[in-house]
Structures are given as structure tokens and as C-alpha cells.
């Protein structure tokens, strides 16, 4: 078992190096080419460490409630300890435009990949991905409603997407649960049904969206365009905390792969563990899709590809999937950024992902997951 931790550390270190390399190289690419050295210095200059925090009460304007709702706001003070004197243009391009988008891309990629790995193991089904429990389609309804009917859905695109995702996931779970048990097959099927229903709602909203059709379509295909640091500040903590919880349950997930009855006789509280994994994976996915839209394929192929290389042990699979997923989405988004028309990154992930997936299937003789 020591050997497992050693393998986890070694593979994670390798994937971590890959991720950092992809982040830095990505930041050099764009309309204004910037050298790797300048990028590295600008990134370190941008590096901020929290030095203090304060909570202030704001009043959030809500149409029905007169005077609005009180709303706590957390303000975190940051200090930048390193200064390298990078030219201001380069600093702004790297620090304010490219890096937020790249770091958000890495966050989103990591969250999709780790929840994909969890759900594939959870369902013992190679076709499972984070959208299977209705998270993506719920987020889509929320986001598209906020885009096309801003006067009805007043809370903004990202909160609407996040809320939609969690409501959809909870609905799927509640439909599939009877007497405290949630059979996996029922969960899968109720996920498919709810997805189809929500897809119809989304389509209806898009068809009737008038000139908002373009932003709605961009959201549906997934895009990181226009990401800012405050997006990262909102998404990253959710993904980091959620991933830590999932990692803590890696051993239970291994045992669950032996089947739920076996897992029970090996001391896993199956129903509680399933509930927890499903909830955390849903929240992590919801955090990703509400900022970047419904990016497909990352949650499906990254865990798959990583499993083929490192094996099914979740103690290794989960961290390596997260880091590799981050690197993959940043690379795909770099291609999107470098393309003249700047297509949604979801199109790029599908274009790269599907053939790569087929290559793996043909080449590696996949017998099981």
C-alpha cells in the first residue's frame, strides 16, 4: 500500500510538470507573441498570496423584495511578493487577459476530468461522464434561461447555471432513490430521461431567443472567452475542496469497483459513500460548467486515457486525471484562441478527443473500463 502512495506521487508529479509546462507555453501564444521567459516572470509577478480577509454585508437588489436582500460578501486582501519589472504591455496581456483564462481552463478541465473518473468508477460504465447525472443539462437550462430571459432569471448566467446543475442532479438522484437505496442502473436511466427533458427545454429557449442565440450557442458548446480572475476565485476553491474530498474516498472507490455487495462486506457504507461521491462530483462539475459552459469529452476521455496508462487504482487515477484534464483543456483552448474565428473550446475538445479516444480503443484493446 506504500507502493500505491509512491506511484500516486510519482505520476502526479509528472502530470503536474506537464500541466505547468502547458500553462506557460499557452500563455506565450496569441496575437501578440510573448517569450516564455517573459511569461514566466509575468506569471510570478501576478502570483498573489492572500494576506487577510473581511466580510461585509451588501444589499442585493431583488425585484420582489423591497430594499433587497442582505448578502454577505467576502473580501480577500492579496499581496504580490514577487516583482520582476516585466514591460507593462506584456504584464497586462499575460496577467490580466491570458492567465485568468488559462487558469480557469485548467480548473475546469481538472474538475471535469476528476468527476468523470469518479462517475465512471461509480457507474462501472465506460460511457459515464459528468453530464450523466443531469448536471450539464441542468446548467444549460439555467444558463440559457439567464441569457435569453434576463428579465425573468435575474441572478446572472453563472449562478443560474450552478443552481440549474444542482437542481437537476438532485432531481435525478431523488427520482432514482427508493427506501434509501439508489440502484446505479436506475440512476443512469433517470439521468438519461432528465437530460432529454432538459435538452428539450434548452432547445425551446434557444429557438425563441432571437438575437441572443449566439451567446447561448457559445455557452452550450463551452467557451472560456472573456474569463477574469474573479471567475477563477469563485471556481477554484470549490474545485480544490471538492477534489480533496473525492481523493479522500479513493480507497472506497476502489472497493466499490468490486461491486456494491462486495464493497458492503468489505466494510464500505455503500449508500452513504455513493450519496457523498455523487453530491461532491455534481458540485465540482457544476462549478466548472457554470463558468465555462457544457464542454464535452474532457470528462469522458481524460480519465479513460489516464486509466489505460496508470491503471484503475483511484489513489493514482484521480489526481493524475485532474492534472491531465487541466493540461488537456488548456491545450485545447489554446488552439481555440489561436484560430482566427475563435470557435468554442468544446468544438476543439471534441475534434481532438473523439479520434484520440478511438485510437486508444483500437490500439490498447480495451477489455473493460
Amino acid at each position: 500500500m506504500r507502493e500505491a502512495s509512491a506511484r500516486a506521487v510519482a505520476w502526479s508529479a509528472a502530470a503536474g510538470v506537464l500541466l505547468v509546462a502547458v500553462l506557460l507555453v499557452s500563455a506565450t501564444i496569441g496575437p501578440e507573441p510573448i517569450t516564455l521567459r517573459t511569461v514566466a516572470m509575468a506569471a510570478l509577478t501576478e502570483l498573489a498570496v492572500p494576506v487577510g480577509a473581511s466580510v461585509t454585508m451588501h444589499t442585493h437588489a431583488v425585484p420582489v423584495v423591497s430594499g433587497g436582500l442582505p448578502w454577505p460578501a467576502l473580501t480577500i486582501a492579496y499581496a504580490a511578493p514577487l516583482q520582476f519589472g516585466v514591460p507593462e504591455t506584456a504584464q497586462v496581456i499575460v496577467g490580466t487577459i491570458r492567465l485568468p483564462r488559462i487558469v480557469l481552463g485548467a480548473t475546469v478541465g481538472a474538475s471535469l476530468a476528476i468527476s468523470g473518473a469518479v462517475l465512471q468508477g461509480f457507474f462501472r460504465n465506460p460511457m459515464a461522464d459528468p453530464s450523466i447525472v443531469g448536471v450539464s443539462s441542468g446548467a444549460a437550462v439555467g444558463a440559457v434561461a439567464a441569457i435569453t430571459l434576463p428579465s425573468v432569471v435575474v441572478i446572472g448566467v453563472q449562478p443560474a447555471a450552478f443552481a440549474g446543475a444542482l437542481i437537476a442532479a438532485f432531481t435525478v438522484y431523488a427520482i432514482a432513490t427508493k427506501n434509501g437505496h439508489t440502484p446505479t442502473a436506475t440512476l443512469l436511466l433517470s439521468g438519461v430521461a432528465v437530460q432529454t427533458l432538459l435538452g428539450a427545454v434548452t432547445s425551446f429557449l434557444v429557438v425563441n431567443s432571437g438575437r441572443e442565440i449566439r451567446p447561448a450557442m457559445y455557452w452550450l458548446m463551452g467557451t472560456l472567452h472573456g474569463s477574469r480572475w474573479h471567475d477563477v476565485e469563485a471556481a477554484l476553491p470549490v474545485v480544490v475542496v471538492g477534489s480533496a474530498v473525492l481523493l479522500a474516498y479513493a480507497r472506497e472507490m476502489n472497493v466499490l469497483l468490486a461491486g456494491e455487495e462486495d464493497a458492503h462486506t468489505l466494510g464500505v457504507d455503500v449508500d452513504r459513500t455513493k450519496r457523498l461521491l455523487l453530491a461532491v462530483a455534481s458540485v465540482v462539475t457544476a462549478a466548472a460548467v457554470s463558468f465555462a459552459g457544457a464542454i464535452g469529452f474532457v470528462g469522458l476521455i481524460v480519465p479513460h486515457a489516464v486509466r489505460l496508462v496508470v491503471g484503475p487504482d483511484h489513489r493514482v487515477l484521480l489526481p493524475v486525471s485532474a492534472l491531465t484534464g487541466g493540461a488537456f483543456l488548456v491545450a485545447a483552448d489554446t488552439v481555440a484562441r489561436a484560430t482566427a474565428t475563435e470557435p468554442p473550446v468544446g468544438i476543439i475538445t471534441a475534434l481532438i478527443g473523439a479520434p484520440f479516444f478511438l485510437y486508444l480503443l483500437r490500439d490498447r484493446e480495451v477489455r473493460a473500463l
Partner: protein
Amino acid sequence: MTLDVTGLDVELAGTRILDDVHASIRDGHLVGVVGPNGAGKSTLLRAMNGLITPTAGTVLVAGDDVHALSSAAASRRIATVPQDASVSFEFTVRQVVEMGRHPHTTRFGTDTDTAVVDRAMARTGVAQFAARDVTSLSGGERQRVLLARALAQAAPVLLLDEPTASLDVNHQIRTLEVVRDLADSEDRAVVAAIHDLDLAARYCDELVVVADGRVHDAGAPRSVLTPDTIRAAFDARVAVGTDPATGAVTVTPLPDRTSAAADTSVHVVGGGDSATPVVRRLVSAGASVSVGPVVEGDTDHETARRVGCPCTSVAPFTRLEDTTAASATRADIAAADVIAVPVAAAARPGVRGLLTGAVPTLAVGDAAGAPEWADRLVACDAVVSAVGALADTPSDGV
């Protein structure tokens, strides 16, 4: 750590699967659960380890209700070897066996007891493929890996659901020897659902016969495995005897048909190996057969023991006349409806004196005509119908 099952009722999807089941398994005891397909054997094991919640009754392990314990606490007391070894992910054998340590490992700690894992793998003979993928193993090898996983769990109670189902003869014995040894040398309480009645009788201290969700009988193999109990539980006709090699109870299933000789009581006189084909045919046809006199260790003697017929034997090179064997044989003959005597056996010294003609007598052999001591002469393969015919005609002596 004893396991006590009291008044257990289990319903699945509205159907009563177990009905008022009682059982008690003590430390160091190996208890076999036998019964026909669909009798509820697996359900009983699944209720014992807490997988299924019963509608009534309790399962107590060392005095605590299994269904009230957390799954972690229950799994430290009860380890289960499941029936179907479907492991679909490419874990190595060692990783699968290590999963047995799960209940002993804290969330952020690592279990350092690699010795338990090594011992479990060595004991079940899977150490040689510790580094291989479980998916690349045969069904029998996977079953042994799951036994190793249960051993690594180090629980005082072990439940096995058909542990020998997909094993070859060699590994059936090896696996049951390991299981037997777990009860004997480690004082574990072991329950195994076993299909093969001979293996169950040979290795278990006690058998519980389950049929239609009820316990038909329970106790030592020799007292439980009777033709009547087996007929009631399995709806099968069997001969119950003693295996000459192991001395254990052995059960031979017989074709389920009613023949001319069914329920007829027949005494067969033995001699070397001449009575063996006659005894086999009559037992198989459902006749109630006694045999004697036979010489100890002769083929006829072994046959009689194997099919469980009452048998009178004499030591080699002893004169038959005036021995207790002779009077025992006379008593058997007097109680029989028909006597069947192989011609070769009748030639043995002292045998002719037993054939008084008081009971209808059948000579079996290829001789030219019926001997003067017999009512009829038939070939061996016609013995069943001849016995039937003879039993129906009242005897008027020779």
C-alpha cells in the same frame, strides 16, 4: 465469536425466501449449508453478513445484531467470499487481496500489515500470480483470489458462497482443506454453502439442509444425510453409503423412475465380485437391498458400503457355518421378499445351507438351467424385472 441465527424471515420483492430459519455456528466449527437450487442458501448467507435486512428474526455475531452494526464494524467480524467472481477492472491480484484490509485501515492512514496479505496469498496458492491482472485469471483462480481477500480481512467468522463451484477437483479439495484448517487451527466459525453433498459431508462438522426457505434438518452429516431427508429436500432418490477412501458419508443420486423392483426388499448373496452388478441394478431400481455374506475387502463388500446397504461380512478364510454372520444373513433373508443369488456365489462353501427355499429365490447367471435351489434363473441384466415378477407371486417353496 459465535454466529446465532434466530427465527429469520426474509422477503425479497414480496416473495418469502427464508421462513423461520434457525442456525448456530460455534468457533472452530465448519457448517455446510446444503439444499437444492433456489432453496435460499445464498440469501441465508447474505442475511448473515448484513447485506439483506430480514423482515423478522435476528443474526447475532458475538451477541451483537449484525444489522445494527456499521458495515465497517460488521466486516471486521464477518468476511464473505462471494459466489460470482466478477472483477471487471484491471487490478493486480495483490491489490484485490489488499482490499480485504479496508475495514482495518483509517481514512488517511496506510495499512502496514503486509504480512497478513502475504500469508493470505500464500495459503490460497495465489502468491505466484500476485502481480497479474485479475481479469487475466481463470474463474477458479479468481475464486481463490477472493478467498485470499477474505483471509486478509482477518475476521473471526467466514462465510463462503459456493467456494468450490468453479474449481477443478484438485482445487476443490485444496480450498476446502484451507477452509477446514481455518476452523481447526484458527478457531474461526465458518459457514459454507456447498453444492456437492459428498464434499460437504466430508469437510463439515455439521450440515444445515435448506429447502424452500426452511431448515429441513441440521446436525452431523451422517445423521442429516439420509435418503428420506434428501428425498424431502431435493426431491431426489439417492443411495447413501460410506466412501471407502475417506470414510465419509457419500451420496449417490439414482435415476428417478419407478421400476418393477421398486420398494421390494431383496437380499443378495455375495461372493467375490459376482453380487456387485446385481446390487447396483437393484439399488438403482429402488429396491431395498441387503447383502451377505461377503468377504471383508472384496468388491462386493466395497459396493455394499458405497451404496449404503446393510451388509454382513466375514473375515477371509473363515468357515461360514455356525458363525454370527450366518445367523445374521438368515435373518436378512427371512425379512426379504426375494433372494437373488449369483450362481458363482452359490458355489461358495456354506452358502447352499442358507438357501432353504422359504423365500422366493432367484439365481442370477449364465448357467444352462435353473439350479434346483432356485425358482428361476435370469441373466444379470434382467434381474430387476425378474425380482418384480417373483415378489408378486406367493412362494410355495422348491
